[in-house]
């Protein structure tokens, strides 16, 4: 589908994907740990970890979808987020079973990478999808999905341990909302911006806005566990959303062929 490809075929960008990857993994994990240790007051740090992971995931989606996935953009997001949910819960449960609760988030990330790799190998070897960077990108998206789910769960439950997360996030059904909200936040930026004139910086601004919007929602959801942490998460999320959304709208108006408030389109030779 021609609408799926960016102008230069594979996705070149102004922002290094390696830097986003490092920021996503290292920043995400550090924020989850800090958020977990600080309890209710650390919710905002954990939520920022999720924002970093979502921006990383959106960039990975952009790279793999530039090969012309088209309508497959939401699909790969959906699939990877299901990996993310499974691996996040499996990781913290495994850590509890092995009595190494401190390693829960790392276990979750490793499980996500393994499942992501298996899915990518099935997609390329058995289904026969000819996308060269499928393996790397599926692993990255699954990892980002896992970290974003775990970070938001930590923000709601105030801990990355199994029992509080099951009590506040799984039993209440919020895990389903986190799954679908993170799916949207990760796959939407590229899906919304695709086209021959797609631009990485603009897409990442959109990614930041969807991530902060999700953070605001998570702030509202985390009011269920009490304390005032939810209020800080909501306010910081709103501020981040206003800044990134303004940046995205400004960039869109500048990059548009023309921005009009009335009238018809210009006459162009067909």
């Amino acid at each position, binding site marked *: 589908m021609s609408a799926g490809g960016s102008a230069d075929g594979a996705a070149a960008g102004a922002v290094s994907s390696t830097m986003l990857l490092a920021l996503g993994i290292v920043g995400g994990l550090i924020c989850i740990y800090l958020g977990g240790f600080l309890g209710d007051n650390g919710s905002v740090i954990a939520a920022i970890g999720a924002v970093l992971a979502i921006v990383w995931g959106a960039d990975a989606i952009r790279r793999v979808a530039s090969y012309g996935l*088209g309508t497959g953009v939401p699909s790969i997001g959906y699939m990877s987020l299901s990996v993310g949910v499974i691996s996040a819960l499996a990781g913290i449960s495994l850590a509890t079973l092995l009595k190494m609760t401190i390693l829960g988030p790392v276990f979750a990330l490793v499980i996500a990478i393994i499942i992501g790799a298996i899915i990518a190998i099935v997609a390329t070897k058995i289904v026969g999808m000819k996308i060269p960077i499928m393996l790397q990108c599926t692993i990255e998206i699954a990892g980002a999905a896992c970290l974003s789910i775990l970070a938001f769960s930590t923000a709601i439950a105030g801990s990355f341990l199994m029992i509080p997360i099951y009590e506040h996030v799984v039993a209440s059904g919020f895990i389903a909302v986190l799954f679908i909200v993170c799916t949207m936040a990760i796959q939407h930026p590229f899906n919304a911006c695709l086209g021959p004139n797609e631009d990485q910086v603009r897409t990442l601004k959109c990614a930041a806005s969807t991530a902060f919007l999700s953070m605001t929602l998570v702030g509202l959801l985390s009011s269920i566990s009490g304390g005032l942490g939810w209020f800080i998460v909501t306010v910081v999320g709103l501020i981040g959303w206003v800044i990134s959304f303004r940046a995205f709208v400004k960039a869109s108006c500048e990059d548009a*062929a023309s921005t009009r408030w009335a009238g018809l389109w210009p006459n162009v030779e067909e």
Partner: protein
Amino acid sequence: MDPVTLGVVALMGAVATIGGAAEDLESDIGSQSNPNSQVQLAPQMGHLHRMINKAASGEPVAYGVWCGVAGAIAYILITMFGFVPGFPVIAIAIGAAVAACVHAIYTVTSHMGRIVGQSQFEQPLFMDVLTQSLGPIVGHGFITSFCIVGISYLMTIPLGASPALHVFPLPLLAMLWGIALGAIGSSTGDVHYGAESEYQKFEFGGGTPVAIQGDIVTKAPLGAKNSMDVVNFCAKFGGPLTGFCFGLVVFFSFWNTVVFGLYGGIIVGIIIVILLIIMNDRLEVFARNTYGPYDEGALSESAAEEAAEEE
């Protein structure tokens, strides 16, 4: 059979019908789902337009988000203030309002992003199109989220002497029913969607093959065709039909087990599915033979006429 439960199941079916109709009309205004890629391709085909291009993923994911968010917010409020009589209705409305805000934000980003992604074809970014369509899109979205969270809530509370219809928590049910509604709006609604309006210059019944994608009609009887014209067209048939379909799905999900018990309900459900398959097949064959371009006799006649004209 408990008459209270049966009445609530009937109410759920009616509410789902309203929600389903609103969902389909919302996706028709936003050119979401199937037509979106085609509106997306229009500038490349030389048709600059004043349509909304709201590609916030497919409808299932999008409605999973709106309904999931509305359900989660309602769940929190009901947990906190549920002891106030009648409060759940207000809580569901507040949840749907929050979901409507999220819906509006995603609509703005997807429309702006997709139009700017086509800037090399000189497609202008019409801000008035966005501001005019945002209200109807969000309004229909609000009605849908309210209906879906409403029926999900009815599933989670004990009815009369019966236990609750479902054991899942409200946010999970709301998200699942949102995805189900999105899938039905996308499959049922798409057959009667704006394609008939956007592709009215092509013969009815031929579908939208890849070769004509993006080759849309961009002018209305007066001025430029916009997304409101599409929804006016779809409101007569496509929207109500989608609502009817979703209402039946919700109703038949519970009616058979409520009336015939667990095992009897499964057997009745299978019979209903078989009857529907036969009816659908008969209806489609009838419609294609009567109205579609698949009349082989007519095709061969027109081919003979063309051959005669060429000679």
